[in-house]
């Protein structure tokens, strides 16, 4: 049924699709990757193909990246991906989903590489065998934003948990993402660290992306936790201000927001485009691209701080946090 339908669609759409190179290329990429991409590039049997495939065994293929809304909505990925697509003659399908959903897509084998920001969820993902070759990629920080009149009086507090406790005690409006995203995970961790169980009329779970959550907070004069990048890129549209800074502006370390990148384990999902995923991870952690990340600005401010290039080894980036080969852990 479906195959017939698809062929029919292909027939009626062939002419139209061919006219848009990007679409037909990506279709070809995913079709060609139909279980065959690993062997094609692996056994070097592509001598009969064009020169393009001699440059890199991945030419013409499509990399599916599931990621968070903050990397996508700030425009960073669109800014840097052109370079990668040109270098390898591939296309990158960036799907902005939020950390929880991005990992879930990868868990189902629907993406090749994940770029997210919730270390706890990333570690679980690795421990379950879905993700491999994790690298620290970049960081920025979270900030607690709220209305300028600051009804809970948290401005300038040095401790994020004290600030949340003050908000809870004042029962001031607080907007939570409520969507299992990296930001939501961080927020829940902060409440836990503050020893407060948020709930009541003042605490609203919106189930939306960061931009929408900021809009809702803006309209209701509420507090919310935001990553700095999304807040900066939206600041001109809203009246909220930063009340508790993150570590980039000397705020508490607990508000750090590190992004990690992992390839989907081809041992679990043999359709994952592992070659291209590793090429992508190699590319995005290279000095040149790390520079490009640090140079990326919105409204004159740097949004992301590269973290992948370092003289000093940081072995913890490759394994679940706290994992050690000596421990009896797993």
């Amino acid at each position, binding site marked *: 049924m479906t195959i017939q339908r698809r062929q029919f669609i292909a027939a009626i759409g062939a002419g139209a699709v061919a006219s848009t190179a990007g679409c037909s290329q990506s279709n070809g990429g995913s079709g060609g990757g139909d279980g065959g991409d690993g062997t094609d590039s692996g056994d070097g049997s592509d001598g009969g193909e064009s020169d393009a495939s001699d440059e890199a065994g991945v030419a013409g293929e499509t990399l599916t990246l599931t990621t968070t809304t903050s990397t996508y909505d700030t425009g960073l990925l669109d800014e840097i991906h052109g370079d990668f697509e040109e270098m390898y003659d591939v*296309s990158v399908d960036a799907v902005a989903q939020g950390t929880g959903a991005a990992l879930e897509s990868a868990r189902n*084998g629907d993406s090749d590489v994940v770029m997210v920001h919730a270390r706890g969820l990333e570690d679980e993902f690795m421990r379950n065998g879905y993700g491999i070759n994790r690298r620290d990629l970049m960081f920025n920080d979270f900030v607690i934003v709220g209305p300028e009149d600051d009804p809970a009086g948290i401005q300038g507090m040095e401790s994020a948990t004290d600030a949340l406790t003050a908000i809870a005690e004042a029962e001031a409006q607080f907007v939570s993402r409520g969507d299992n995203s990296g930001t939501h995970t961080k927020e829940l961790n902060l409440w836990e660290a503050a020893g407060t169980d948020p709930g009541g009329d003042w605490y609203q779970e919106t189930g939306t992306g960061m931009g929408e959550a900021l809009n809702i907070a803006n309209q209701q004069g509420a507090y919310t936790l935001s990553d700095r990048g999304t807040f900066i890129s939206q600041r001109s549209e809203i009246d909220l201000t930063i009340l508790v800074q993150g570590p980039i502006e000397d705020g508490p370390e607990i508000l750090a927001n590190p992004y990690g990148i992992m390839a989907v384990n081809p041992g679990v999902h043999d359709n994952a485009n592992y070659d291209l995923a590793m090429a992508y991870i190699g590319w995005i952690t290279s000095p040149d691209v790390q520079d490009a990340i640090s140079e990326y600005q919105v409204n004159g401010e740097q949004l992301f701080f590269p973290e992948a290039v370092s003289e000093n080894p940081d072995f913890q980036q490759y394994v679940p946090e706290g994992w050690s080969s000596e421990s009896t852990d797993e």
Partner: protein
Amino acid sequence: MPLDPIVPFVPALFESPFREGYVSSVIYVSLYVSLAAVALSTLFSIPVAIVVGLTDFPGKQFVKSVINTGMGFPSVVVGLVVLFAVSNQGPLGSLELIFTKQAMIMSQFVLATPPITAISLAAVTGVDESVRDAARALGGTRFDVALVVVKEARYGIATAVLAGFGRAISEVGSVLIVGGNITSADGISKTRTLTTAIQLEARQGQYETAMVLGAVLVALVLTVNAVVVRFGDRGVQP
């Protein structure tokens, strides 16, 4: 054809905040997916409507109820079901349809089929009994009778197709889930439709640009409707 009046018109009026080619590629994807889905739905729905409308069989009322219930399917649920089907873990996983236009067409097919079937069915049922009798009396086969009925019901069927198209092109929940709202890095849409583009702008708090895209969507639907109605009128008054 409907593209021409809209695409150059938008950047001229609004000083487009979008990159070159973005809006037209998003419109293209919207139209491609919706028209393909509606075409497939129509091919499926009209025979079903004719069979259900012109024959009597046990359980006919139940079939009608199922079709009518389908009109109320929440698109997000349809999206989840199609996601389950095309996901790598799903029954169609090996086809690698996730995050493609084909997957979006599948979900819109599921969404557009019930309204097209239900409205076509009403149109077919509404054709006067005497028309059928006349066709039969003139020695028509069953197929001939069906053709005559479709011809009589064409205006209702056109309405059905338009209703299906309206449902497909204005739907956001399922195409977002199965399509992934993807553009390439140079801003050319791969699976981003007008509705998911609007959703993206709204997520970023850019309500003005979201409104611009909304206006484009309304203009597009209006254009398609105008074309079909015009076409239909010409058919009615030869």
